[in-house]
């Protein structure tokens, strides 16, 4: 099976073959000798490759993982061939959308725009407070405010939808 993997923004192709319960892995066409042992159920892994030892920690889900090796973080995104095609189609369809999401979990302190209002790119939409730091969240694109998904004093999760902006005809 072929996987398309992004590590810190760089693309790699990984071929995985399972033979008698053992995995044969090739990265970018080069076979990689590998021994993978989970240390605990908390994400610590003891990895050996070509005589080199790596104390790895992994957390994430099926498609995204944070891998830490020797203090450095590797943000990994995994797609198989089918998912890659589906995601490409999705990206093409949602071109030009202007959904502003919360960059962090926090509390909406103040709304500075109303639905129906015309905004410029970079204009402040609302103030989000987290750990007593106030952050102005601004419009990612110019357009008309279609929907405000939050209310003042509302607590939002990281990545939550805040404001939808549509292009003005």
């Amino acid at each position, binding site marked *: 099976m072929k996987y398309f993997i992004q*590590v810190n923004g760089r693309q790699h192709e990984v071929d995985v073959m399972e033979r008698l319960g053992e995995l044969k892995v090739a990265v970018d066409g080069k076979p990689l000798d590998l021994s993978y042992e989970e240390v605990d159920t908390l994400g610590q*892994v003891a990895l050996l490759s070509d005589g080199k030892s790596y104390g790895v920690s*992994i*957390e994430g*889900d099926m498609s995204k993982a*944070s891998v830490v090796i020797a203090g450095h*973080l*590797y943000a990994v995104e995994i797609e198989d061939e089918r998912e890659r095609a589906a995601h490409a189609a999705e990206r093409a369809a949602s071109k030009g959308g202007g959904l502003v999401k919360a960059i962090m979990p926090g509390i909406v302190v103040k709304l500075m725009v109303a639905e129906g209002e015309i905004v410029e790119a970079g204009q402040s939409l609302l103030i989000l407070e987290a750990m007593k730091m106030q952050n*102005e969240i601004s419009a990612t694109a110019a357009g008309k405010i279609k929907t405000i998904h939050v209310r003042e004093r509302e607590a939002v999760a990281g990545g939550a939808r805040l404001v939808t902006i549509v292009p003005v005809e």
Partner: protein
Amino acid sequence: MFQRILIANRGEIALRVIRTAREMGIDTVAVYSDFDRRALHTRMAHRAMPLGGSLPRESYLDMAKVIRAAKESGAEAIHPGYGFLSENADFAQKVTEAGLVWIGPPPSAIRAMGDKITSRRNMKKAGVPVVPGLVDPVDDVAAAIAEAKHIGYPIAIKAAAGGGGKGIRIVRNEKEMPGAFRTASGEALASFGDGRLYLERYLEEPRHIEVQLMFDKHGNGVHFGERECSIQRRHQKLIEESPSVIVTPELRAKMGAIAVQAGRAVGYENAGTVEFLYSKGEFFFLEMNTRLQVEHPVTEMVYGVDLVREQLRVAAGEPLGFEQKDIVPKGWAIEVRINAEDPFNNFVPSTGTIRNLRAPGGPGVRMDSALYRGMEVGLNYDPMLAKLIVWGSDREIAIARMIRALQELNVGGVRTGAPAALLVLEDERFRKGDFDTHFLTTLDLSNPRGGEDALVAAVAAIHRHLLSKRRALATTASSRTNWLERNRSRLSSYPAHQAEPHIQTGPAPKGARP
């Protein structure tokens, strides 16, 4: 010496004070909010008193509750740590009036230094150099714009009652003033209940150098040299060191003497820190922190002193018992703050439950933290999870040791700033000592790390992916409910988020987390 003290704080600093008190044979009393029932400081103290509530203002900021806890537990003194009520003169006063000893400076000294405007006036009078700017605070945008013309841009606007970088904004021109003023004032109001701001000239290529002071109640005062805290982002310190590469023994003696002079001018007692901005050969008084600092361990490592022990000794009325000439630095110490934040996404706060935890060890390594497996990292409290401190016989050795310690450290469940600290320590400019407080903004944090380790990371992730897939599919086949999207994603994430039974006796405290 005291028989029993109460620590009016939480997290690593509460634990820090408990540790020294235990070594001195002093009984310790912790206070805790509902959220902190299981916290490490609650567990490590001899006694623990509930404050109730989960928000800071319902618990650690509630003066009456804290004082009542001290009286009820039979504590003789209160150590405030840093943050919360530590620089609140009214609280210090109330503690004293309740017949307890305040382990800190007298309320009059906190007042003289607490408000930045008052402190600058006092320091000017005492002959301490201050940054050019306004002496009086402004309360609206129009006044700020008018005053800014006299001072000249770039300008820093700061909360009159501030600290810890909250409510500070840099304004580079008149156009930026309205937006910056609004958010800074709002932040100041939310954090300190005082929205007044003051303006001052923003110094170019500034380095943050601060001097550690200790005064007893008998008029003796000394300094423990400097710490440099120029590696900061949004005015929150990330890496601190002692000594500083730019401070010569002569400059140390000069800055130290002026810092002691500043403390004397306000009748200081106990531990305190005078912060200076150093810019191109000159240094200016910034503010005085009338409490123990987060970064005090680097001073402890270099001077071989336990500052909390000194705090307790002088608060109990003992004389210092040593003089300035007895205080000699040795080697180099560095501290890295491990915050719950994503350095590759503009340092936005990160929340979660600590799952995976691997602490560094070995020669010259000290970790001050209140981290434990299962700890919830929320938004109500400070994002600092741990402080990693190392000592080496010189700066080069200390840097190498810190890199090694950071490689050993692993905090899972949240993102931390540790990878950014590694990038700083590996940077040639930092290693040569050529940096200022803007250093972090010049550092490429787009996380471009590639190479062999990246391939290993990819392959490890694939292994984990396949194992998860197998597990998710297996369980799904056995139970219809697992077809639910939510359950499926729970099963496929790792480490597994298993619902652990939460056993509790007695009624659940109000607002407690399940």
